[in-house]
């Protein structure tokens, strides 16, 4: 696809509008307009907005980055903010939404090591929905095993919302790839969900309910 110079000029105007915004509402509206263009030239500016501590604008910026998709991945990966965990959570969420396999390492690290529960939560969800279709069989199998391993570790996370997100990640992984997983992987995935459902120590009933729902859906498809 070629991009006309007109469109590029329009995107530059939209970026300029974001820079000029001097109230939260103006920033939100300018971000929404830039996001709606879904133009790769807007990616750098959208990534910057993730660090502005304006949740409304950040939601719109993530939507925009996801709409841009694969062409935004490089920009997101090179601009991950190591110090602002709010911004990092939004960046991880954008990577999760895009599902590009180049994000795997960031998502793995985020779920396993990040101090921010909102970052681990977004990563867990993303690990269940990477787009692995175009990979070779060997590469796909290796990526799948990595996703599964870090999600299984995440079942023991100390925050209920991360355990919840891990369940959603496992459910998505199973929905797309259950039959591709080898038997031990299938077994450990099901066992992890059953443990989350039945864990007497679980403080959050909503986590147990979500695990029950995931198991129910898995059984409906795979018996």
């Amino acid at each position, binding site marked *: 696809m070629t991009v006309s110079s007109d469109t590029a000029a329009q995107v530059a105007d939209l970026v300029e509008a974001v820079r000029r915004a001097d109230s939260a509402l103006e920033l*939100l509206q300018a971000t929404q307009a830039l996001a709606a263009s879904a133009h790769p030239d807007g990616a750098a500016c959208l990534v910057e907005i993730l660090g502005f501590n304006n*949740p*409304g604008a950040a*939601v719109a910026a993530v939507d925009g980055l996801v709409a841009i998709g694969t062409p935004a991945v490089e920009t997101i990966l090179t601009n991950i903010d190591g110090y602002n965990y709010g911004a990092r959570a939004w960046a991880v969420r954008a990577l999760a939404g895009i599902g590009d396999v180049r994000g795997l390492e960031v998502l793995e690290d985020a779920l396993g090591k990040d101090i921010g*529960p*909102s970052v681990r*939560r*977004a990563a*867990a*969800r993303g690990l269940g929905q990477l787009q692995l279709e175009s990979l070779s069989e060997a590469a796909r199998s290796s990526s799948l095993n990595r996703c599964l391993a870090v999600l299984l570790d995440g079942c023991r996370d100390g925050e*209920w*919302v991360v355990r*919840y*997100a891990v369940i*959603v990640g496992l459910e998505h992984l199973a929905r797309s790839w259950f039959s591709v997983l080898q038997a031990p992987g299938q077994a450990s995935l099901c066992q992890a969900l059953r443990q989350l459902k039945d864990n007497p120590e679980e403080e*959050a*009933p*909503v986590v147990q*309910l*979500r695990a*029950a*729902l995931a198991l*129910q859906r898995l059984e409906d498809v795979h018996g």
Partner: protein
Amino acid sequence: MVAGAADPPISGNGDPISEEEALRRLRLTDDPSAQYYAAWWLGRNRSSNPEAVRLLQEALRQRRARDVGAGVEENAVARNAARALGKLGAAAQPAIEDLLATLEDEDDGLREAAARSLGELKANEAVPALQRRLASGPAVAGAQRSGTPRLQEPCEALLEALGEIGDASPDVLAVIEPFVQHERPLIRSAACRALLQLTQEARWGEQLLALLQHKQLQVRRAALMDLGGVGWRPALPAISATLAENSLKLIALRGLVENQDAGASSQLDAATVAVLEAMDDLL
């Protein structure tokens, strides 16, 4: 409810400790900062040790008349002790008398902590005192004190406690209702929350939905927590759509799932699945 209202543990003392160690530290009456952390720890970990309740009661009695300008370390310990007792459920029953006495303390921070805990413990005995504290209405109990942004009474906590305890008699409702007109949106939110909890009437929920559209993020956050605290399911789309952090929306939606009548909160019916799916979208 305002999220994150609890004091963080004192830095440097926030090490992982055992229950035995927490109890030991709570006995150190000459080391308020050790006691402060220990009281917090016992509540956070929902200690079921009978000794915990007894020591927390003692810590609560350690409070002293407020002396402006002097250190208030003991009151900080008492405040954490009051908060911790609220988290200990049935085990804390013997401490209800102490919490009721704390509700009469001059220190409004202590009254606030005691009110919240009495609410968490669903202490019916507290209803008359909570009503009495609020009876003068928004113009007196709800008036701002001079020289501080604080109100005469910790209205938010008192209102919330009445909602949590669940006594829906007409005289309780009559005390709460005027606060729906309070000039501060956070107080309005607390009043609507309590009335929604007590009456299940949609008009109070709708006022909370209106507060989800408020221009201040702080107000939207409070309305989120209040809707979650009540578990009012019709709020689902508005909670998903409001401009606030997903972390808080997720907590509110967890409340929509869990804060239902016993039985209904452990079932995967269509309404529950709808809330879970909305939560999935916020991760």
